[in-house]
Protein backbone atom coordinates (compact mmCIF):
# COMPACT_ATOMS: atom_id res chain seq x y z
CA UNK A 1 0.00 0.00 0.00
CA UNK A 2 2.85 2.34 0.88
CA UNK A 3 4.66 1.50 -2.29
CA UNK A 4 1.53 2.25 -4.29
CA UNK A 5 1.28 5.68 -2.68
CA UNK A 6 4.80 6.60 -3.63
CA UNK A 7 4.31 5.64 -7.21
CA UNK A 8 1.19 7.69 -7.32
CA UNK A 9 2.96 11.03 -6.83
CA UNK A 10 5.85 11.26 -9.30
CA UNK A 11 5.82 15.07 -9.94
CA UNK A 12 6.26 15.85 -6.23
CA UNK A 13 9.24 13.52 -6.10
CA UNK A 14 11.23 15.05 -9.00
CA UNK A 15 10.79 18.45 -7.41
CA UNK A 16 12.31 17.27 -4.10
CA UNK A 17 15.09 15.64 -6.00
CA UNK A 18 16.28 18.89 -7.56
CA UNK A 19 16.34 20.57 -4.17
CA UNK A 20 18.87 18.13 -2.76
CA UNK A 21 22.50 19.24 -2.75
CA UNK A 22 23.88 15.95 -4.11
CA UNK A 23 27.41 16.90 -3.00
CA UNK A 24 28.78 13.53 -4.01
CA UNK A 25 28.26 14.56 -7.63
CA UNK A 26 30.09 17.89 -7.30
CA UNK A 27 33.57 18.26 -8.75
CA UNK A 28 34.18 21.27 -6.50
CA UNK A 29 33.41 19.18 -3.44
CA UNK A 30 35.74 16.31 -4.27
CA UNK A 31 38.63 18.30 -5.74
CA UNK A 32 38.51 20.59 -2.70
CA UNK A 33 38.73 17.59 -0.38
CA UNK A 34 41.66 16.25 -2.43
CA UNK A 35 43.56 19.56 -2.33
CA UNK A 36 42.91 20.07 1.38
CA UNK A 37 43.90 16.49 2.12
CA UNK A 38 47.19 17.14 0.35
CA UNK A 39 47.71 20.38 2.27
CA UNK A 40 47.11 18.66 5.61
CA UNK A 41 49.64 16.01 4.61
CA UNK A 42 52.14 18.68 3.48
CA UNK A 43 51.70 20.49 6.80
CA UNK A 44 52.33 17.31 8.77
CA UNK A 45 55.25 16.39 6.49
CA UNK A 46 56.86 19.83 6.88
CA UNK A 47 57.18 19.26 10.64
CA UNK A 48 59.43 16.25 10.16
CA UNK A 49 61.13 16.79 6.79
CA UNK A 50 62.42 19.70 4.78
CA UNK A 51 61.59 19.56 1.06
CA UNK A 52 63.72 21.89 -1.00
CA UNK A 53 63.88 23.18 -4.53
CA UNK A 54 66.49 25.58 -5.80
CA UNK A 55 67.35 27.44 -8.95
CA UNK A 56 69.79 30.26 -8.26
CA UNK A 57 69.00 32.84 -7.11
CA UNK A 58 65.59 31.46 -6.13
CA UNK A 59 64.85 28.77 -3.61
CA UNK A 60 61.77 27.22 -2.06
CA UNK A 61 61.36 25.04 0.96
CA UNK A 62 58.56 23.40 2.88
CA UNK A 63 59.49 22.95 6.50
CA UNK A 64 58.65 24.12 10.03
CA UNK A 65 54.94 24.23 9.30
CA UNK A 66 55.05 26.42 6.22
CA UNK A 67 56.46 27.24 2.82
CA UNK A 68 59.50 29.46 2.39
CA UNK A 69 60.22 31.21 -0.89
CA UNK A 70 63.41 33.17 -1.16
CA UNK A 71 65.77 35.04 -3.41
CA UNK A 72 69.39 34.73 -2.41
CA UNK A 73 70.16 38.01 -4.11
CA UNK A 74 72.57 39.48 -6.56
CA UNK A 75 75.66 37.88 -5.19
CA UNK A 76 74.71 34.62 -3.52
CA UNK A 77 77.25 32.91 -1.29
CA UNK A 78 77.34 30.13 -3.82
CA UNK A 79 76.66 26.51 -3.25
CA UNK A 80 79.11 25.71 -0.51
CA UNK A 81 78.35 22.07 -0.83
CA UNK A 82 80.39 19.21 -2.14
CA UNK A 83 77.36 18.18 -4.17
CA UNK A 84 78.06 20.85 -6.69
CA UNK A 85 81.39 20.36 -8.34
CA UNK A 86 82.33 23.65 -9.95
CA UNK A 87 79.75 26.17 -8.71
CA UNK A 88 77.16 26.82 -11.33
CA UNK A 89 73.57 27.67 -11.89
CA UNK A 90 71.59 24.51 -11.40
CA UNK A 91 68.35 22.91 -10.45
CA UNK A 92 68.39 21.15 -7.14
CA UNK A 93 65.70 19.16 -5.40
CA UNK A 94 66.15 17.51 -2.05
CA UNK A 95 64.38 16.13 0.96
CA UNK A 96 66.07 15.86 4.34
CA UNK A 97 65.11 15.68 8.00
CA UNK A 98 63.97 19.13 9.19
CA UNK A 99 67.00 20.88 10.69
CA UNK A 100 67.27 19.98 14.33
CA UNK A 101 70.09 22.28 15.40
CA UNK A 102 68.26 25.35 14.15
CA UNK A 103 64.96 23.94 15.26
CA UNK A 104 62.49 26.72 15.91
CA UNK A 105 60.51 27.10 19.08
CA UNK A 106 57.56 24.91 18.13
CA UNK A 107 54.70 27.16 17.06
CA UNK A 108 51.34 25.65 16.24
CA UNK A 109 50.33 28.61 14.06
CA UNK A 110 53.38 30.64 13.00
CA UNK A 111 52.54 34.02 11.39
CA UNK A 112 53.29 34.79 7.73
CA UNK A 113 56.56 36.66 7.25
CA UNK A 114 58.21 38.79 4.59
CA UNK A 115 61.56 40.48 5.03
CA UNK A 116 64.33 42.14 3.05
CA UNK A 117 67.69 42.65 4.76
CA UNK A 118 67.25 46.44 4.67
CA UNK A 119 63.77 46.21 6.15
CA UNK A 120 64.61 44.24 9.28
CA UNK A 121 63.26 45.63 12.54
CA UNK A 122 66.43 47.04 14.12
CA UNK A 123 65.78 46.42 17.82
CA UNK A 124 64.37 42.92 17.40
CA UNK A 125 67.13 41.99 14.98
CA UNK A 126 69.78 43.11 17.50
CA UNK A 127 68.13 41.18 20.33
CA UNK A 128 67.91 37.97 18.27
CA UNK A 129 71.54 38.29 17.21
CA UNK A 130 72.71 38.69 20.81
CA UNK A 131 70.63 35.74 21.91
CA UNK A 132 72.25 33.69 19.14
CA UNK A 133 75.77 34.73 20.16
CA UNK A 134 75.06 33.94 23.84
CA UNK A 135 73.37 30.65 23.19
CA UNK A 136 74.61 27.63 25.09
CA UNK A 137 71.75 25.25 24.46
CA UNK A 138 70.73 23.35 21.39
CA UNK A 139 68.27 23.20 19.75
CA UNK A 140 68.22 26.96 19.61
CA UNK A 141 65.02 28.48 20.96
CA UNK A 142 64.04 30.57 17.95
CA UNK A 143 60.72 31.15 16.25
CA UNK A 144 60.40 31.01 12.47
CA UNK A 145 60.36 34.81 12.38
CA UNK A 146 63.60 34.97 14.36
CA UNK A 147 65.18 32.36 12.08
CA UNK A 148 64.33 34.45 9.03
CA UNK A 149 65.80 37.57 10.67
CA UNK A 150 69.01 35.70 11.55
CA UNK A 151 69.33 34.24 8.05
CA UNK A 152 68.99 37.64 6.39
CA UNK A 153 71.46 39.21 8.83
CA UNK A 154 74.01 36.62 7.86
CA UNK A 155 73.60 35.90 4.17
CA UNK A 156 71.29 38.68 3.07
CA UNK A 157 72.64 40.92 0.31
CA UNK A 158 71.39 43.20 -2.43
CA UNK A 159 68.08 42.04 -3.77
CA UNK A 160 67.57 39.15 -1.37
CA UNK A 161 64.31 38.48 0.39
CA UNK A 162 62.50 35.68 2.22
CA UNK A 163 58.77 34.99 2.26
CA UNK A 164 57.20 32.53 4.66
CA UNK A 165 53.61 31.38 4.23
CA UNK A 166 52.41 29.05 6.99
CA UNK A 167 50.50 25.94 5.99
CA UNK A 168 47.53 26.87 8.17
CA UNK A 169 47.07 30.05 6.13
CA UNK A 170 47.18 28.19 2.81
CA UNK A 171 44.70 25.63 4.15
CA UNK A 172 42.40 28.36 5.47
CA UNK A 173 42.47 30.21 2.13
CA UNK A 174 41.64 27.08 0.17
CA UNK A 175 38.90 26.13 2.63
CA UNK A 176 37.33 29.61 2.41
CA UNK A 177 37.29 29.52 -1.41
CA UNK A 178 35.94 25.97 -1.34
CA UNK A 179 33.08 26.86 1.03
CA UNK A 180 32.25 29.98 -0.99
CA UNK A 181 32.07 27.91 -4.20
CA UNK A 182 29.85 25.32 -2.53
CA UNK A 183 27.54 28.01 -1.17
CA UNK A 184 27.30 29.54 -4.63
CA UNK A 185 26.50 26.12 -6.05
CA UNK A 186 23.77 25.64 -3.43
CA UNK A 187 22.17 28.96 -4.27
CA UNK A 188 22.26 28.18 -8.00
CA UNK A 189 20.59 24.84 -7.37
CA UNK A 190 17.96 26.42 -5.18
CA UNK A 191 17.13 28.93 -7.90
CA UNK A 192 16.99 26.24 -10.56
CA UNK A 193 14.67 24.14 -8.38
CA UNK A 194 12.37 27.09 -7.70
CA UNK A 195 11.73 27.55 -11.45
Amino acid sequence: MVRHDLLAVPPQKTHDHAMKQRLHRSITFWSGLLVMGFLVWAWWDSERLSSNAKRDPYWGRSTWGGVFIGNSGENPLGDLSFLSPPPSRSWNFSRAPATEVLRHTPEAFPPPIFFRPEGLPAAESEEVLNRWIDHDVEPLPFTVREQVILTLRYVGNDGSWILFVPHWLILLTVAAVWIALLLWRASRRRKAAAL
Partner: protein
Amino acid sequence: MKLALHRSIIFWSGLFVMGFVCWAWWDSTRMRSGLGMGHYGASHALGGIVFFNDPSTYKTWFDRGKLRKTFALETLPAPHVLKFDPDRERNDDWDMDGPENARVRYWNEYRIQCFMIKGAWFLFIPHWLILLAVALPWSAMIFWRSRRRKRTITP
Protein backbone atom coordinates in the same frame (compact mmCIF):
# COMPACT_ATOMS: atom_id res chain seq x y z
CA MET B 1 80.81 -17.29 -44.81
CA LYS B 2 79.86 -13.67 -44.37
CA LEU B 3 79.93 -12.12 -40.90
CA ALA B 4 76.42 -10.67 -41.28
CA LEU B 5 77.02 -8.23 -38.42
CA HIS B 6 73.79 -6.42 -39.12
CA ARG B 7 71.94 -9.51 -37.88
CA SER B 8 73.87 -9.69 -34.61
CA ILE B 9 72.18 -8.55 -31.39
CA ILE B 10 75.57 -8.20 -29.70
CA PHE B 11 76.75 -5.85 -32.43
CA TRP B 12 73.75 -3.51 -32.23
CA SER B 13 73.32 -3.55 -28.45
CA GLY B 14 77.04 -2.85 -28.04
CA LEU B 15 76.82 0.11 -30.41
CA PHE B 16 73.78 1.37 -28.55
CA VAL B 17 75.47 1.14 -25.14
CA MET B 18 78.69 2.73 -26.39
CA GLY B 19 76.74 5.47 -28.09
CA PHE B 20 75.03 6.22 -24.81
CA VAL B 21 78.33 6.25 -22.90
CA CYS B 22 79.80 8.64 -25.48
CA TRP B 23 76.82 10.93 -25.13
CA ALA B 24 77.13 10.81 -21.32
CA TRP B 25 80.84 11.59 -21.58
CA TRP B 26 80.14 14.62 -23.72
CA ASP B 27 77.29 15.70 -21.43
CA SER B 28 79.55 15.44 -18.37
CA THR B 29 81.90 18.03 -19.86
CA ARG B 30 79.23 20.72 -19.88
CA MET B 31 76.65 19.73 -17.26
CA ARG B 32 76.75 18.18 -13.86
CA SER B 33 74.05 15.75 -12.81
CA GLY B 34 73.71 14.08 -9.49
CA LEU B 35 71.41 12.13 -7.25
CA GLY B 36 71.63 10.60 -3.85
CA MET B 37 69.85 8.91 -1.03
CA GLY B 38 70.78 8.85 2.62
CA HIS B 39 74.55 9.06 2.99
CA TYR B 40 75.21 7.79 -0.53
CA GLY B 41 75.24 9.61 -3.81
CA ALA B 42 76.62 9.84 -7.32
CA SER B 43 77.71 12.95 -9.16
CA HIS B 44 78.30 12.97 -12.88
CA ALA B 45 80.63 15.65 -14.23
CA LEU B 46 84.08 16.40 -15.64
CA GLY B 47 84.39 13.27 -17.75
CA GLY B 48 83.37 10.69 -15.19
CA ILE B 49 81.19 9.63 -12.27
CA VAL B 50 81.94 10.10 -8.58
CA PHE B 51 80.29 7.65 -6.23
CA PHE B 52 80.49 8.80 -2.65
CA ASN B 53 79.52 8.19 0.92
CA ASP B 54 79.07 11.21 3.14
CA PRO B 55 78.12 10.42 6.76
CA SER B 56 77.65 14.13 7.52
CA THR B 57 74.42 14.48 5.56
CA TYR B 58 71.26 12.48 5.23
CA LYS B 59 68.94 13.39 2.40
CA THR B 60 67.33 12.41 -0.87
CA TRP B 61 68.32 14.73 -3.68
CA PHE B 62 68.52 15.36 -7.40
CA ASP B 63 70.59 17.99 -9.08
CA ARG B 64 71.40 19.15 -12.61
CA GLY B 65 73.06 22.29 -13.86
CA LYS B 66 75.63 23.89 -16.10
CA LEU B 67 79.29 23.64 -15.22
CA ARG B 68 81.39 26.74 -14.85
CA LYS B 69 82.95 27.51 -18.19
CA THR B 70 86.24 28.53 -16.60
CA PHE B 71 86.75 25.13 -15.06
CA ALA B 72 89.59 23.33 -16.78
CA LEU B 73 88.96 19.88 -18.11
CA GLU B 74 91.22 16.86 -18.20
CA THR B 75 91.05 14.77 -21.35
CA LEU B 76 91.68 11.38 -19.74
CA PRO B 77 91.30 11.75 -15.96
CA ALA B 78 92.65 8.89 -13.86
CA PRO B 79 90.30 6.79 -11.71
CA HIS B 80 90.84 7.22 -8.00
CA VAL B 81 89.57 6.41 -4.52
CA LEU B 82 89.78 9.04 -1.80
CA LYS B 83 89.12 8.92 1.93
CA PHE B 84 88.62 11.78 4.30
CA ASP B 85 91.83 12.24 6.26
CA PRO B 86 91.33 14.06 9.59
CA ASP B 87 95.09 14.69 9.91
CA ARG B 88 95.38 16.51 6.64
CA GLU B 89 95.25 20.25 6.67
CA ARG B 90 92.32 21.86 5.03
CA ASN B 91 93.20 23.98 2.05
CA ASP B 92 91.08 27.08 2.46
CA ASP B 93 92.72 29.25 -0.17
CA TRP B 94 92.10 26.76 -2.91
CA ASP B 95 91.90 28.49 -6.27
CA MET B 96 88.90 27.39 -8.22
CA ASP B 97 90.30 28.59 -11.53
CA GLY B 98 93.96 27.91 -10.87
CA PRO B 99 96.01 25.84 -13.29
CA GLU B 100 96.39 22.87 -10.90
CA ASN B 101 92.68 22.18 -10.84
CA ALA B 102 92.88 20.77 -14.34
CA ARG B 103 93.13 17.46 -12.52
CA VAL B 104 89.79 16.08 -11.41
CA ARG B 105 91.55 14.42 -8.49
CA TYR B 106 92.68 17.80 -7.19
CA TRP B 107 89.12 19.02 -7.11
CA ASN B 108 87.88 15.88 -5.37
CA GLU B 109 90.61 16.09 -2.72
CA TYR B 110 89.54 19.61 -1.98
CA ARG B 111 85.91 18.65 -1.71
CA ILE B 112 86.41 15.68 0.58
CA GLN B 113 88.67 17.63 2.96
CA CYS B 114 86.45 20.68 3.10
CA PHE B 115 82.96 19.34 3.32
CA MET B 116 83.10 15.86 4.71
CA ILE B 117 83.69 14.06 7.95
CA LYS B 118 85.43 10.90 9.05
CA GLY B 119 84.22 7.88 7.15
CA ALA B 120 83.57 9.73 3.90
CA TRP B 121 84.92 8.29 0.68
CA PHE B 122 84.99 9.08 -3.03
CA LEU B 123 85.25 6.69 -5.95
CA PHE B 124 85.85 8.33 -9.29
CA ILE B 125 85.37 6.33 -12.49
CA PRO B 126 86.21 8.14 -15.75
CA HIS B 127 84.08 7.65 -18.82
CA TRP B 128 86.97 6.39 -20.94
CA LEU B 129 87.28 3.47 -18.52
CA ILE B 130 83.59 2.63 -18.77
CA LEU B 131 83.81 2.84 -22.55
CA LEU B 132 86.80 0.54 -22.52
CA ALA B 133 85.04 -1.89 -20.17
CA VAL B 134 82.23 -2.14 -22.71
CA ALA B 135 84.30 -2.06 -25.91
CA LEU B 136 86.71 -4.84 -24.94
CA PRO B 137 84.16 -7.58 -24.11
CA TRP B 138 82.10 -6.39 -27.07
CA SER B 139 84.92 -6.80 -29.58
CA ALA B 140 85.85 -10.14 -28.00
CA MET B 141 82.29 -11.36 -28.39
CA ILE B 142 82.17 -10.19 -32.00
CA PHE B 143 85.46 -11.97 -32.62
CA TRP B 144 84.19 -15.25 -31.11
CA ARG B 145 81.04 -14.93 -33.11
CA SER B 146 83.01 -14.73 -36.35
CA ARG B 147 85.06 -17.76 -35.36
CA ARG B 148 81.94 -19.71 -34.42
CA ARG B 149 80.36 -18.88 -37.72
CA LYS B 150 83.42 -19.94 -39.69
CA ARG B 151 83.55 -23.30 -37.88
CA THR B 152 79.88 -24.17 -38.25
CA ILE B 153 79.68 -23.29 -41.91
CA THR B 154 82.95 -24.72 -43.18
CA PRO B 155 82.53 -28.53 -43.34
